[in-house]
C-alpha cells in the first residue's frame, strides 16, 4: 500500500544512476483510505519531507494540488495539515510501478508491496 510518505523517501538505486528522484508512478491503482489525522507525526515529519518531490508526485497522480511552499507555522495551520495528511497517509498505491526518471528502471508494485530489488549486475 505504497503511501506517499514512503515514496517520498525512495530513489532509484541502480549503480551509477545519480538523479533517480522522485520515482514516477506508472499505471498506478490508487486507493484512498480515510484515517485519523496524526498531527504530532506530521509536524515531526515535515522537515524530512522533500516538498518539491511531494508536489510533483501529487501532480503526476492528479491529486489535489499542495501549496507551493510549506507555511511558516505549519503546526497551527489546520487546513495545511489536513491536506498534508491526505497526501502523505491516505493515498495508497495498490499496484502499478515506480519508474526512475533518469535510467527508466522499473520497480513493480504488487499487492501494495514495492519490489525494489535489483539484479546482481545492477548493484
Amino acid at each position, binding site marked *: 500500500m505504497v503511501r506517499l*510518505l*514512503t515514496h517520498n*523517501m525512495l530513489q532509484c538505486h541502480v549503480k551509477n544512476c545519480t538523479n533517480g528522484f522522485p520515482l514516477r508512478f506508472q499505471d498506478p491503482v490508487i486507493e484512498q483510505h480515510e484515517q485519523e489525522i*496524526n498531527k504530532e507525526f506530521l509536524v515531526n515529519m515535515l522537515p*524530512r519531507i*522533500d516538498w518539491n518531490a511531494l508536489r510533483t508526485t501529487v501532480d503526476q497522480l492528479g491529486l489535489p494540488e499542495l501549496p507551493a511552499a510549506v507555511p511558516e507555522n505549519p503546526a497551527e495551520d489546520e487546513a495545511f495539515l489536513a491536506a498534508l495528511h491526505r497526501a502523505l497517509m491516505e493515498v495508497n498505491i495498490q499496484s502499478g510501478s515506480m519508474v526512475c526518471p533518469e535510467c527508466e528502471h522499473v520497480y513493480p508494485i504488487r499487492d501494495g508491496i514495492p*519490489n525494489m*530489488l535489483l539484479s546482481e549486475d545492477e548493484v
Partner: protein
Amino acid sequence: GAAPPERNRYLVHFAQAHEDFRLAELRSLAKLENVDLVMEEHRYDRDRPFLTVQLASDADAIKLVRRSILVKAIYALWEESRSYEALLDQIRRKPERNAPYMTCSFKFVVETFNNSRALDYKVAIINRFAFMAFTGPIDLKSPDVTLGVLEDYDYKSDVPRYLYFGIQLGFGNRPAIDKFSLKKRTYLGTTSMDPQLSLIMGNLGLVRPGTLVYDPFVGTGSFLVTMAHFGAVTIGSDIDGRQIRGTGKGNARRGAKPGSASVWSNVEQYGLQDRVVDCLVYDMAHHPLRAGELFDAIITDPPYGVRAGAKKIGADLKRAEWVKRPDGSIAPAAAAATTEPHAAEQAPRQLVSAKHPHGRYPQTVPYDLDAVMADLTDFAGRYLRVGGRIAYWLPTVKAEYADEDIPTHPALTLVANCEQPFGQWSRRLVTLEKTRTWVEGMHSSGSGQLSAKLERAGPGA
C-alpha cells in the same frame, strides 16, 4: 552551588525476568518521560527484584513505570529495615504520615521474593499493622490506597533478610506482553520476536507517538506491530518478499484461512493499519532510501544463517553455517534442519525488471555477520535524526565475546548493552543513540571478529 533538588524515595519492584535489561529500561523510560531519576545503584543487587530510587514526585513515579515491561509496581517508600520489630517501630514514630489515609478505603498486599508464602502467613503479617488503626473500609478490588509490605528472603530461608513498606502508586505495563503473545498472533514466522523483548526494545529505543520507526530486517513484521502499539508510525523492509506477503501458513490456532496470513494480517488483528504504513522488498546492503535524517528509531533483529535469510544480492549462493531458532538461540544449520525443514525459505525471490519483464531471480550471496552489523551501524549513523536510537540484537559466544566486537560509529553513542544468555551462547540487545550530525567520512568500525568467533566456537561448543 545550587541546592540539590528535593527528592523522595521510591521502591521499584521488578518482575523476575531479563535481569540484565532492568536498569537500562528504567533509564530509557526516565528520558522518554522526562523524569529526573536517581537510582540508588550501589544498593541494588541484580539477583533481587528491588531497586530504591529518588524522584521529585509521586506523579513522576507513576510516569516512570507506566510503560515498563520489567517493572511490576512502584511504591512510595516509607520505611525499610532488617526486621519487623524495627520496621514497625519506625512506622509508629511517624503517625502524622498516616493522617491522609485514616478514613479512606484501603487494602494491604504482601509481596515476597524467594519464598512463596501462603495466605494465612500474609494475613498474620497484615495483622501486625493493625496498630495503624485505619478506620476506612477494606476494599480488595479498588481501594483508595494500597499499602505494600515487601519481603526479601535468602534462598531456602524462612526469615526475611530485608523488608520494605510503602504505598503502591503505579504499575508497569506487563499486560502488554499477553496482548502481543505469539500464541494469539495470526501470522507467525520462524523469527517472530518474543513480545516481552520486543516491547522492551520499544522502551530502549524511545519509541513514542509522533515518531517514525524503521525495521530493515522486517521478517513477519513483529516490530512494526509492537512499535505501532507505542504510537509510532512504522515502515519495514526485507530482502524476502515472501515473508511480508505471507507463506499462506497462518496460525491455525487463530483460525487463519490458508493463504490469508501475512504481515498485514497481524496489522489488522491489532487494528494498527493507520500506523503500520509500508513494507518494501529490498536488500539492506543495496537500499533505495534517499539521504537524510529520516527515522526516529531503528528497531531490528538482523539475520544470520540460512533460516533467517542472511543473504544479500550478489553472484553465487552459499550456505551460511549458523541459523537462529525461533526462540532466538543459535544452532548449527545441520542440527536445526533436522528439527524443522526450511527448504521453502531457500526458494529464490522473484525479480521483475525492464530487462527481465517475465521475471527472474537475482542471485544472492551469504551476508557475513560482521558486514551486516557494519552496514546497519553505518545506516543508523546516517539515517537517524540526532537524538534518535537504534536497538538491535547481536549473537555472541559468551566465552569469546568482547565489548570491542560491537561496531562503533563517530555519530553514535552506546547507551545500553544487555545480555540474554542461552547456555554457552547469548544474544545482546545493543542500543545506540545518535549524538552527532552525520558528515561525509564517518564510518562504523568494529573488531570484525563476530563471524570468526561464532565459527571458532563450532557446533560442539
